[in-house]
């Protein structure tokens, strides 16, 4: 076991962390701003990948898919918020969780009907194929590209939340919806947009993952588990928490892969259980809602 291999493993872990952040981001945003645990997250991720496939099939270009599919699914997410989630505001916090659980079933089955039960090929865009020599080893160009996109999305989110008036309103609204109503801000329209953005980012994750993980109706099942682990470790609803948790989980999985590879999945859940027992609200979480 050389130093080079360990360095490479560390880098793979960080890269995996970036993928995991991408996977978890939508879940984290929707929970952080709206307090909704979106169990349909995995299904929407998968729907995003299929939408990407569909757009790429129409336009013949991965780049259009990367742009259009998240917007399409984001709009679809707004429909979900408007007609399925909105009636549940003010009810038990368990209700949206249960509803989205059922929605996950429906979306997976709908995709099976529309696109078949088998997976569908999704090739890596030509410009992003091949490997890059990092000095410690070779790494796929596409994965480096994904890291870049994740950084860009995080930057945009940070700017959007911290530097714009919209972000100010969203943050205030998530802290205290009542105040927003008093100030005359239409909170329901705000939540519609936030939910749409969350779902759009989830779909973007799906499109980005498609060339790595193949596209199939079941691809969301694992994603849901990964996203939960990352979000919960980071503290549900905390953006910096999700980023740090993603990297921690990525590196933990990677290092486990080197020394006890068969434990690579179990380590995620063990880490999650452990961290929650020490810090019941996750690393950066605030107290749970509804109590």
């Amino acid at each position, binding site marked *: 076991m050389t130093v080079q291999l360990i360095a490479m493993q560390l880098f793979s872990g960080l890269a995996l962390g970036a993928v995991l952040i991408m996977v978890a981001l939508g879940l984290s945003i929707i*929970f952080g701003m709206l307090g909704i*645990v979106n169990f349909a997250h995995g299904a929407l991720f998968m729907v995003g990948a299929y939408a990407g496939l569909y757009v790429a099939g129409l336009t013949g270009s991965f780049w259009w898919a990367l742009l259009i599919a998240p917007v399409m699914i984001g709009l679809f997410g707004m429909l979900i918020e408007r007609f*399925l989630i909105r*009636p*549940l505001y003010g*009810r*038990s*916090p*368990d*209700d949206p*969780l*249960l*509803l989205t*659980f*059922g*929605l*996950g*079933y*429906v979306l*997976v*089955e*709908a995709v*099976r*009907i529309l696109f078949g039960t088998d997976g569908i090929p999704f090739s890596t865009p030509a410009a992003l194929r091949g490997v890059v020599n990092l000095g410690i080893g070779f790494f796929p160009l596409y994965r480096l590209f994904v890291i870049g996109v994740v950084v860009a999305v995080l930057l945009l989110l940070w700017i959007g939340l911290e530097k714009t008036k919209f972000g100010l309103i969203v943050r205030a609204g998530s802290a205290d919806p009542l105040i927003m109503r008093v100030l005359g801000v239409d909170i329901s329209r705000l939540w519609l947009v936030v939910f749409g953005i969350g779902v759009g980012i989830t779909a973007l994750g799906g499109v980005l993952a498609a060339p790595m993980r193949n596209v199939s109706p079941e691809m969301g099942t694992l994603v849901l*588990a990964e996203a*939960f*682990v990352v979000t*919960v470790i980071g503290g*549900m609803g905390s953006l910096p928490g999700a980023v740090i948790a993603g990297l921690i989980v990525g590196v933990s999985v990677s290092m486990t892969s080197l020394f006890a590879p*068969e434990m690579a*999945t*179990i380590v995620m*859940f*063990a880490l*999650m*259980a452990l961290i*929650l*027992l020490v810090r*019941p*609200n*996750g690393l950066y*979480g605030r*107290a*749970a*809602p*509804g*109590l």
Partner: protein
Amino acid sequence: MSVIRNAELVPAPARRSFAALFSNVSRWRVPLSILALCILPWVLPSQALAVNVLIYGLVAVGYNLLFGYTGLLSFGHAAFFGAGAYATGIAIGAFGVHWFIAMLIGVLVSGLLATVMGMLAIRTRGIYFSMVTLALAQLVYYAALQASSWTGGENGLRGFTVSTLHLPGFSVNFLDPLVKYYAIMIVVAGALWFVSRVLNSPFGAVIEAIRENETRARACGYDVERTKLLSFILSGILCGLAGTLSAMHLSIVPLDSLHYHTSGLIVMMTLLGGAGSFFGPFIGALAFLSMEDIFSLWTSNWQLIVGVIFILFVLYLPKGIWGTLISWGKSR
């Protein structure tokens, strides 16, 4: 914190008609359930399905104690169901233990697991409670996957078929579907009676108070954590009992019985029937399994139909089938 209404235990105003009918139903709930269970195998398409309704009905009833009555949304109850099943199967298969002792072992193991998981999870609240139970249950799942020399790993546990039930003085053919149904039904009926007693007990009043208002319950002088833990353990034991019955019924323990999909299934059944009511969960299990059985013969996209129905219930009938019936009856 919870919208779940417990209509049954609210003393009904002394009105006649439906209200009186429902309060009678509530008073005679155990005999009535047993009567319904007796005719179940004759009205369902198959006895194997009827046994599954018994087993999942019991799981849902056990889960309801925690979710419907105590107000805690656990996403890890598959762990207790599976632990009960595995413990029974291993006791019979690997150690040749008598089936009755094996069932006791199954219940005991699931109770122990529930105690450990409960002590860890009760510390967290709200959505984190759901997530911690989910994570701990996943750990149990992976442990069973890894310990394949004991559990059979992904292949599932096999080799413990009980074909004859030896009882003092006589024995019955457990392979006969009707015999099997009624044998399992006796256990389930006993468990229902137990649950009914628990719900009627002072403890039953306390868990509802905690569901309704944790802060207030604490100020009233109740040790909320200990009460929640006891509720968690009782609920785990009931699910474990259902697991042991499932092992006896199927003569295998699938690894899937520990998967979080099973936990999700339990939540769906409970909610469908009506969380926080005595009959609800059983009716939910009956409705869910019958739908699945019938729709999956008719189309391979049965999940779509089940999912849509579930969404409609969350949106429009959050009290579930039975809860809605009750409030409809009361409003007459």
